[in-house]
């Protein structure tokens, strides 16, 4: 017997105090579903809900049938109404949370799950789903640059999941995006403790140390990460970016940074950031042709942002390719105006 039928059976059996007409409709809906006549069931359940507007189970059952029919948004609406009528019903809340998550409504999905855990802290399903939903929401917030909202989410999630490495990686990310670099270091450190094999954790930890002004510790962390993940181009790319920053302040040679970035590309030629960094290094040393090659590779690798176009324009102008340089300058300005910088 499917979940929908169980729900419908329960609805039909339990709603003893409801108007008889509504109960009849619910029973008929049960039979309709069993017979594969979902549309009739949906119509009956809508009518039943209209006759008994405070009955959460009719709406919940309606939501179940709608979900079965693939009508996710109406199903969410039905479960939302059911949850409003029966705020302590963890079954309904869990269903609502699951459906919202299925629809990618991460922010909305959190609410019923948090509600479940407030009344039933040991609800394993809600606990697992809330972690997933929170991580997905964090990714959305990071992509949309809503760093303050992400920080609040991550802090709350880290309190709920003190032993989750991915959650601490998320926390580290948002703390650093909010310039709370020392808090970011703590978050990443915890992530690495929880998951010593987390490449994201190790890389984030090293980057956070660098941003917090702890260059010596950052170098050690990068070296450890590079040794632990010898086949990871991404780790070496991040290490190379760090060395390029040290080069700016005279603490490292340009060649050391370039060597690290080239080793990253040897492991993964698609690493666009490494190409960009090599392009900028080449440009700073007068190697405009080499710079243009790397910057083209960065663009081809999908790093289509303002700084790449700006560097490409500078390189091409030095090569006398004025028209191409102007094209990149226009692209640079378009991207700036599109929100990368205000007036």
């Amino acid at each position, binding site marked *: 017997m499917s979940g929908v039928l169980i729900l419908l059976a329960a609805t039909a059996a339990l709603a003893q105090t409801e108007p008889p007409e509504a109960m009849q409709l619910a029973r008929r809906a049960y039979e309709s579903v069993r017979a594969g006549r979902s549309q009739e069931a949906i119509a009956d359940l809508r009518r039943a809900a209209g006759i008994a507007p405070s009955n959460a189970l009719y709406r919940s059952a309606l939501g179940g049938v709608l979900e079965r029919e693939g009508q996710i948004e109406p199903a969410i609406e039905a479960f939302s109404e059911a949850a409003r009528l029966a705020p302590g019903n963890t079954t309904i809340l869990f269903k609502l949370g699951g459906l919202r998550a299925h629809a990618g409504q991460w922010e909305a999905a959190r609410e019923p799950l948090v509600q479940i855990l407030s009344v039933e802290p040991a609800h394993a399903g809600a606990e697992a789903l809330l972690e997933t939903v929170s991580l997905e929401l964090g990714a959305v917030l990071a992509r949309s640059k809503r760093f303050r909202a992400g920080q609040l989410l991550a802090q709350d999630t880290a309190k709920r999941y003190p032993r989750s490495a991915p959650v601490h990686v998320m926390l580290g990310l948002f703390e650093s995006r909010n310039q*709370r670099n020392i808090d970011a270091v703590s978050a990443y450190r915890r992530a690495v403790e929880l998951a010593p094999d987390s490449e994201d954790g190790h890389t984030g930890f090293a980057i956070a140390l660098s*941003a917090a002004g702890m260059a010596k510790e950052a170098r050690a962390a990068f070296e450890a990460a590079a040794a632990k993940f010898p086949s990871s181009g991404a780790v070496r790319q991040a290490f190379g970016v760090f060395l390029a920053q040290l080069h700016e302040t005279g603490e490292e040679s340009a060649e050391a940074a370039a060597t690290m970035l080239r080793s990253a590309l040897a492991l993964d030629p698609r690493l666009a950031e490494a190409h960009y960094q090599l392009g900028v290094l080449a440009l700073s040393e007068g190697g405009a042709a080499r710079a243009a090659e790397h910057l083209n590779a960065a663009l081809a690798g999908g790093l289509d942002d303002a700084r790449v176009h700006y560097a490409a324009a500078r390189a091409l102008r030095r090569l006398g390719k004025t028209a191409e340089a102007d094209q990149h300058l226009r692209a640079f300005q378009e991207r700036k105006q599109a929100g990368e910088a205000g*007036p």
Partner: protein
Amino acid sequence: MRLAAIAAAAFASYAQTPAFINITPTAGIGWRHCNGQSPQRFLIESTTGGVAILDFDNDGRMDLLFVNGGPTPDGPCPGGARHGLYRNPGGGRFVDVAQAAGLATSSYGMGAAAADYDNDGDTDVYLSGYPSGALFRNNGDGSFTDVTTVSGTANAGEWGASAAWFDSDNDGRLDLFIANYAAFSFGDSKRCQFDGKPVYCAQTLYPGRPPRLLRNRGDGTFADVSASAGVASLPGRALGVVAVDYDSDGWQDLFVARDASPNLLLRNLGGGRFEDVALEAEVAYSPGAVARAGMGVDAGDVDGDGRPDFVVTNFDGEYHAVYLNPGRLPFRETTVSSGLAALTRPYVGWGVRMVDYDNDGDLDLLIVNGHLHEMIERTNRTVSYREPPLLLVNDGQGRFTRSRSGGVFDTGYLARGLAVGDLDNDGAVDAAFVSLNDPPVVLRNESSRGNWAGVRLRGTASNRDGIGARLRLRVGARTLTRWITGGGSFLASHDGRVVFGLGESAPGELEILWPSGRLQRVAPLAAGRYHELFEPANTE
């Protein structure tokens, strides 16, 4: 061995001699800055504190003007918030004459720009601020008259930051450029916190405003030519400005340092028009395409090639930037190779001035710093809230090293405006800066070792102060090139005289290119003193 030890000891002693001494405590200066820091943390509180070194009473000694911020709706200034004007009677003491001088404004104060805009032989003062600036005409008797309304210089409704006097159209009269910052009011509802405590919100929450250019009609009034000059269409958070003819075409150009907005390099096309060439010059953005937090800016020849270069102060982690002028566009940014990146990484810089502090002929950098995030130390181990000034010594090629001169240079401040000038007429250029909610710091230069010769220009066809003039002095095998710039630094105005550091040499011929285009050649000057030089009737 014994000789080497003595030499080492002597060097150590020399190295510990402070280059500058803070004389404020003994100079009779009781003024104190007040920014009206409020529970709301209005952003304007973090950017105030101007200073001018000027000879307002024409006695040949440089006086001091300090610009106060003022109270905010919930941030009082218990001791008052008047501006400070100190007359310099000599002997290292200063006398408070603010009240008698009548330099009072009701606006929230920002910076000062001093110059003889009416060519009557005495120094007038423009005070920038919010919601208006104020122009004070010098009466010639130690007092000033507020001529803001009649002159049309109020810049009403704007948050004016640095301002610069310069002759935009070569008509012999000084025009006024005002670097406006952002749209703002004390009704601002933006609030930001860090760990539950109020902090200043990011500047990017405040839309930038366009600068204003006021053309001097010569009759005591000014015309707003911002639109026709092409600057009204350039909104951005402008903080610093310096005027200099960077391309040697005879027209004064402007470099405008802007905060998280691209810097402007306004090329003067003549005919009252300007064109922003900052992008082409590669001074608008960092090499990483970031519009840095430009605060202060100055111009001068740091690499000895006879062309004006620029230095811009920025936020921590962004480095204060150096742009060398190769005589064509783009400029060459040497922030990394000059050593400035390494020397300035932890600092939020404000006032900056190229000054040959030791009179060896090279322009060094005096920079004042100070953060605005009260809890910055909880986010970065290498950055402090209160930060020391920097004295960066030029090797003559535009590469800098830090002079650890002790005292002031090892003390943290929330410094903003910085002005330089020779307060005791000894040829060693002194300085003064304002630090938020502190007494000002007046620095006497104790380091002068080289010969020097000073020049004060008196324009006749050109503006009386000679702003915009280029001076070239032969010193042995070298030619030292200096400009009398308009503006420069942050919220500041400087001694208009030029001091040439000669090292061990004697001065040779001096060539002056006046803003009028007249070229003047002056026979070798006597070293160790100032010379007043008048613009000739014709090119000599």
